[in-house]
């Protein structure tokens, strides 16, 4: 998923459009000095981003009418959905997604080696991880419906031999998410369809085995990292599922209405989700190559270096935790740091989504013509595949998405603070530590996005 820029370079060169490869790779990879407005230097773009996040905090602090804040977040339209309709849709969709999974496996093993002509590669990376994920945070979490593994697990008998240990919570999904992303970065699974098919088989065995042992609900509700990713992203979406059907809300408003403090393992998952999006971008910056080469030169195995980095970056958790501790001072409150850290954790999700869309919208649009072609003829792909060339201003859009994610996060945190702390000044002052962390995170993310794409070395 994160290796897609590598893929694109390869795709374009295999298509023999060498002349196109350079500018398009740069567009998708990020803003290099040549693609952005030449006169505004990168550092100034990044600084501006940081300042906008800081200023937006100042701006929202002018909005202290608790009732108004709540009214915005509570606004909703209920969309009633009859049960019969739901059941009918459910069977149709589940059947289709199991079918698609089978076609992915078959084409993964037997399909052409060119990534843009391979059904498995295109459907998994462009269709599912880029395109489908966007629909989850832009519209609603449909994964419980589409998830083919869930559908299969429900068909299989469940042993229910084991009870899931309560204390494990979301920790296995944190580990599994980091492991999946690590595997993706060190392996060419976005280019090599056979490797991808093997990974899917591995994941299927793990998932179906787990669901068989612990029960479908327990497995997909606790352990499965993909279900949790979509559940998290789904909280941002305007369509939220309720007991009586669906309701339409303002994007991200559901986050501000949580009224619960996430458990520490759930907070860790949100942080992991945020970090893996950054990690993927970071390992394809020139800085990473410059840092990695001497370290590997000293004799550290590259795979170890990549694993240590993904684990070390997860240390952002401690920065966030430190900020939550500081809130006790700036907000002059007796609420525990653990509660504060869990309370504000969902406000980080818009940042992850903003980063995802910044990364994958270009990738998705570029490959959409190829994806549509292959969907109509999975087993007989055409030799010449079309790709879309993005306009020159596209990279600016990417920066705006990163920024937008942070701005929504500031708003959500503001609303959450008003729910937690009394009065008007305390909620505002409580946000200082988080805002400082957010300004730095914005600037880091924007820096990553502006870096020219460099293939991660040694993998």
């Amino acid at each position: 998923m994160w290796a897609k820029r590598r893929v694109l370079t390869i795709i374009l060169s295999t298509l023999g459009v060498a002349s196109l490869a350079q500018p398009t790779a740069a567009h998708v990879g990020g803003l290099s000095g040549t693609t952005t407005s030449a006169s505004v230097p990168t550092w100034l773009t990044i600084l501006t981003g940081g300042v906008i996040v800081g200023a937006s905090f100042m701006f929202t602090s002018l909005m202290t009418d608790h009732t108004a804040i709540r009214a915005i977040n509570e606004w909703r339209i209920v969309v009633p959905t009859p049960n019969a309709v739901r059941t009918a849709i459910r069977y149709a969709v589940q059947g289709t997604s199991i079918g698609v999974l089978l076609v992915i496996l078959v084409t993964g093993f037997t399909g052409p080696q060119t990534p843009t002509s391979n059904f498995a590669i295109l459907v998994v990376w462009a269709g599912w991880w880029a395109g489908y994920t966007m629909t989850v945070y832009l519209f609603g979490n449909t994964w419980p419906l589409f998830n083919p593994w869930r559908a299969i697990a429900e068909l299989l008998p469940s042993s229910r031999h084991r009870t899931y240990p309560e204390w494990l919570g979301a920790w296995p999904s944190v580990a599994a998410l980091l492991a999946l992303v690590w595997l993706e970065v060190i392996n060419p699974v976005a280019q090599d369809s056979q490797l991808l098919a093997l990974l899917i088989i591995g994941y299927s065995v793990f998932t179906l085995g787990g669901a068989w042992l612990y029960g479908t609900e327990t497995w997909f509700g606790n352990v499965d990292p993909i279900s949790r990713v979509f559940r998290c992203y789904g909280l941002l979406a305007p369509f939220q599922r309720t007991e009586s059907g669906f309701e339409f809300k303002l994007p991200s408003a559901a986050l501000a209405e949580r009224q619960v403090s996430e458990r520490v393992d759930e907070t860790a998952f949100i942080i992991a989700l945020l970090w893996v999006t950054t990690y993927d971008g970071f390992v394809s910056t020139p800085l990473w190559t410059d840092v990695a080469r001497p370290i590997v030169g000293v004799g550290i195995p590259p795979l170890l270096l990549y694993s240590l980095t993904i684990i070390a970056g997860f240390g952002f958790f401690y920065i966030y935790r430190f900020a939550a501790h500081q809130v006790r001072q700036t907000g002059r409150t007796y609420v525990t740091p653990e509660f504060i850290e869990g309370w504000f954790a969902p406000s980080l999700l818009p940042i992850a989504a903003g980063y995802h869309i910044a990364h994958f919208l270009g990738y998705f649009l570029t490959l959409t013509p190829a994806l549509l072609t292959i969907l109509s003829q999975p087993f007989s792909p055409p030799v010449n595949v079309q790709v879309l060339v993005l306009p020159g201003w596209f990279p600016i859009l990417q920066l705006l998405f990163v920024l937008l994610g942070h701005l929504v996060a500031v708003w959500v945190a503001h609303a959450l603070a008003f729910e937690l702390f009394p009065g008007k000044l305390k909620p505002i002052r409580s946000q200082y530590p988080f805002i400082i962390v957010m300004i730095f995170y914005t600037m880091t993310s924007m820096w990553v996005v502006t870096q020219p794409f460099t293939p991660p070395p040694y993998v």
Partner: protein
Amino acid sequence: MTSGVLTPETAVLDDEPPEARCQYCHRPFDTGRSCALHIGEVHSNEWTEDEQLAYEDAVAAEEDELWMYHMKIVVGLGVTYAIIVLIYMIVLG
């Protein structure tokens, strides 16, 4: 929040001891004013008349402080904007 009152986990660590505690949910606060505000926001369906008066006083007192705070924010926004414009003028000029 009328049915289920939000009671965040609180702890009095090595900080100064709390000056006030909510009589309904025992949440500790650093000042009586914070406590009065909390009671008005969360327990207004069960509060006493004294607490209602204390809440109104606290809101009024906070409004004054908030006005000063907002003035600072507005000035801060203006200064930030001016600095950014200046930087752009220097860099692009």
